[in-house]
């Protein structure tokens, strides 16, 4: 992939924004989450991803431990473009988390794909809020460049 648009990572701050209103999640308990997106996609534990054409490949980032719990992101790359991204693992420990996540995850998914149109190599932003989340998506994108 050329000029992969790593600034997509910034979209994850949507998650952070929403997570920042509650305080305690036990990162060890992050479950294998089914993240429902706008398009009705579900992220199972399989590796095939959504794109069923031959050219689509999925890359899963490392799970990153944040102070809110573990986060993991998967992207689907087709013809050098990110066609989909999913959060495959989010902190999901109590009802409030579920409300937050079910709201935040679709934002992340749709904005990440939209962000593909901009040709950006790296992103600079304030660290504190998003470093863990950035890490996971960045990791996924970087794998597309391996």
């Amino acid at each position, binding site marked *: *992939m*050329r*000029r*992969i648009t*790593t*600034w997509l990572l*910034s*979209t*994850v*701050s*949507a998650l*952070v*924004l929403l997570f*920042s209103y509650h305080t305690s999640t036990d990162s060890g308990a992050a479950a294998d989450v089914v993240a429902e997106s706008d398009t009705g996609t579900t992220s199972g534990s399989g590796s095939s991803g959504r794109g069923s054409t031959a050219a689509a490949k999925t890359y899963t980032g*490392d799970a*990153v431990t944040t102070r809110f719990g573990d986060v993991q992101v998967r992207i689907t790359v087709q013809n050098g473009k990110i066609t989909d991204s999913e959060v495959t693992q989010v902190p999901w420990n109590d009802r409030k988390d579920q409300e937050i996540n079910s709201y935040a995850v679709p*934002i*992340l998914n749709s*904005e*990440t794909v*939209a*962000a593909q149109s*901009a*040709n*950006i*190599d*790296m*992103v*600079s*932003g*304030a*660290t*504190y*809020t*998003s*470093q863990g989340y*950035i*890490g*996971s998506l*960045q*990791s996924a*994108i*970087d*794998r597309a*460049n*391996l």
Partner: protein
Amino acid sequence: MITAELPVTPAAPPPPALARRAWVEQVMGMPVSVHVRAVEPTRPDLEAGVARVFAHLRKVDEVLSTWRADSDLLRLQHGERDEAHAWVADVTELCLEAEDRTDGLFRAWRRRPEGRLAFDPTGLVKGWAVGGAAAHLDVVPEVSYSIGAGGDLVVGAGPGPSAAAPSWRIGIEDPRRPGAVARVLTVRRGGVATSGAAARGAHVVDPRTGLGITRSGSATVTGPELLWADVWATAAWVDPTRAERLMVQRDAAYSLLVV
């Protein structure tokens, strides 16, 4: 059409196609991405250079971490040893210089809850470390690189004809609209650092009041060295007007972008 009529002249060879390759490792408590562009990014000398970048950062973490109880810095502070890696002294001096250059808008001393002042160089160490690590790629020929570390980054190139190195497009995150990019900077060499409060405030403390800064927005500084870009970004987040005035006087090679 017309070209068929023209005499064949030995044109300058087209610039070689550059391939892109990325590495990422979790080090110093954050994911660090190294992206390179080179004709052949699988070259062993290039891979060795990238390995030295990460090794450098791991070493910095061993010496200067404020989270690892076994770091030189903390063992020194806890009185568990008398000598430390020379980097501890280097960083201490740089912190003093940063405080001086910014008229105290940057400070590496934090007040503990019980009131005691503690030396905490964390705000300077990242920029210093990533800038220092990048030097390992400055000596690798024919490569252009960009290293991102938790929102701060350094861009550069090794020696060789690709000194006409490709530029990197750096998106500055919009602190008020998650997922959006406020500006795009094109950088060939140098550092880009952003300080601010994207979604959650108060990780930078105003040294004049001891209070966290809670307004929204961010300050980005670009310039030759990530270390000073980072210091000035922190200062500019504390007081944009004053920091910019000082920066123009003292570090004219750096420029500020407030978002």
